[in-house]
């Protein structure tokens, strides 16, 4: 699969896909999107980069091992539910912080943190499977 066209395009494609996955992630909650689909898009971006330029360069590019990324996602996802403890509410009750900058409504919330957690879990888990499979093919 290492044709020159693919190898030239793949980094741009990967960057675009990661950008798009973050857009989809942030768009979620009330509109289609969210952590799971976003994570899938990002994981396929990693897979494409891996097919084009080799698994080693993907591992270098993402710095952390994919399973550690998944672990971090699970960690912040679980933590996001605990904030409601301080407001005498049940586990996972959503907390919202809404403010306006130049007429744009910015909503920060615990579901957002949870969704980012889901995103990271999916990127980590699917990414690690994809990279492992691609590595075997080279052997």
């Amino acid at each position, binding site marked *: 699969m290492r044709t020159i066209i693919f190898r030239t395009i793949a980094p741009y494609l990967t960057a675009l896909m990661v950008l798009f996955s973050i857009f989809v992630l942030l768009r979620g*909650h*009330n509109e289609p999107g969210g952590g799971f689909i976003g994570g899938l898009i990002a994981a396929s971006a990693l897979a494409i980069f891996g097919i084009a330029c080799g698994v080693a360069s993907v591992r270098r590019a993402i710095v952390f*091992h994919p*399973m*550690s990324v*998944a*672990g*971090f*996602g*699970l*960690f912040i996802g*679980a*933590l996001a*539910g*605990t904030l*409601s*403890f301080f407001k*005498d*509410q*049940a*586990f*996972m*009750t*959503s907390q*919202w912080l*809404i403010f306006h900058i130049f007429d744009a*409504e910015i*909503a920060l*919330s615990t579901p957002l943190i949870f969704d980012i957690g889901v995103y990271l879990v999916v990127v980590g888990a699917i990414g690690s499977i994809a990279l492992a499979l691609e590595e075997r093919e080279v052997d």
Partner: protein
Amino acid sequence: MAGSSVSVDLTQAMVTAPVAAGDWLIVAPSLITMLGGSLCLMLRKNTELQPKLGIAFLALLVLASLALLVRVLDYGVITMVMGSWLPPFGIALTVDALGATLTLIGSIVALCAGIYGMATVDGTGRRYGFYPFLLLLMTGVCGAFLTGDVFNLYVWFEVLLISSYGMLILGNDRIQLDGAVKYGVLNLVGTNLFLIATGLLYGIFGTLNMADIAMKVSALENPASGTLSTVAALYFLAFAMKAAAFPVNFWLPASYHTPNVVVSAVFAGLLTKVGVYALIRIFVLILPDSLEYMADLISLVAIATLLTGAFGALAQSEMRRLLGYLVIAGIGAMLAGVVVGSIEAISGAIFYAVHSIIVMTALYMAAGIMSYMGGSYDLRKLGGLYQKNAAFAGVFLVLGFAVSGLPPFSGFWPKIMLVQAAFNDGWGWLGAAILVSGFLTTLAMGRVWIYAFWRGGPEGTPDGTSIAIPAGSVVQLGGAAPWIPLGILTALVIYFGLQPEWMIELSTQGAVGVGAGVDDPVGYLRSVFGDQG
């Protein structure tokens, strides 16, 4: 975006009353293990830190489940709805005495396994994630014990299954993959049946909240109708697979001898009991009429399970396979309790589950130590262990007595409760099967003791002589790490044998909580829906 532009009356859909901080204990077991598990996952490469971190979180888990049990005993059934959304649409975690007791015992066993794992799980096993998997397994186990929602129960089953797959193939050996495939396929079929049955149940009632379903079932004119019996039969098959009951038990002896011995110990202690717990929860709480309808079938299954387990144990000479069959025999005894269905029988089954969790884990741990001392799991190659360590031989004898149901150890009381309940309610054959199975188990354990401990050496050693075990085959144990958990569990076995009162009291409360006998499970329903329920 958060509904700021739309005004809705949230009191209709959400809990608005403040939640007591103590109620957070109900999410604590799953939350602690999830946080600990993910932390360990991130630090997977640091094999020195892993055990310390894992054991610290498991100790925290034991403390949290102890506090939870105390709170349940003080305040009765506790419910917390996730995200404040009201049931039946929100997911409710509901804990009664049964769930809290099993959570506590399960956490103690997990902590013991964590300590034992320091000795038996090497650097590779740690890098492959023994501690993260153990913690996440406990997330699933505790979640299953604490949830009040059928679909959520399914989700926790998946969580614990996925972690258990990881633990099974920790060393990536060929034989482990072979065992994992058998285990995996059977469990996938089981969870799929569980999911299908849950879908049907949702189709009938439009709700998945256990308390809600229980109320709707009891309001039905014909609570054992065709559709509902189908659902019940599917549930029974699914949970029987999980629990390794008779016709679908073959995966257990085929897979439990392959992984690291501490993994077998955790599995033997916890996984099948989650199946039994689900059986008690679904059948006794939600579908009591279907249970009555299927009683004859389940009693046959229970008798067959009791006997195949005991005979299988007699026939095996591989320690871990032998113990696997003893796990199955214990499942039969618990099933017998579920069939009889009186308060005494259900509390006997609960007590038996507690006993079985502790004693089976301890026996696998003892088997691990035996193989370290004697160099093999094969009874033919073991021998002379009494001379090596008389105290250990004593501990093994205690565990052997306990698993056979002999006094004065923990297996005695639940068996008495079960047998008495069976004879009182006219299930004579069931009581007889429990007794016969206990007798055969005694023989099997006696055989192990004579072969591994009493005789002078491995097969072929002349009577009256003893052979020193060749030094080369003996692997050194890692210090005190395997002895501490074995000591803790054996102490519990002796303690429950000598002081059974509060455990009997606790399991009776658990049995009353799920509505064994005649009464409706008022406490459980009230906790979820308030007093109008």
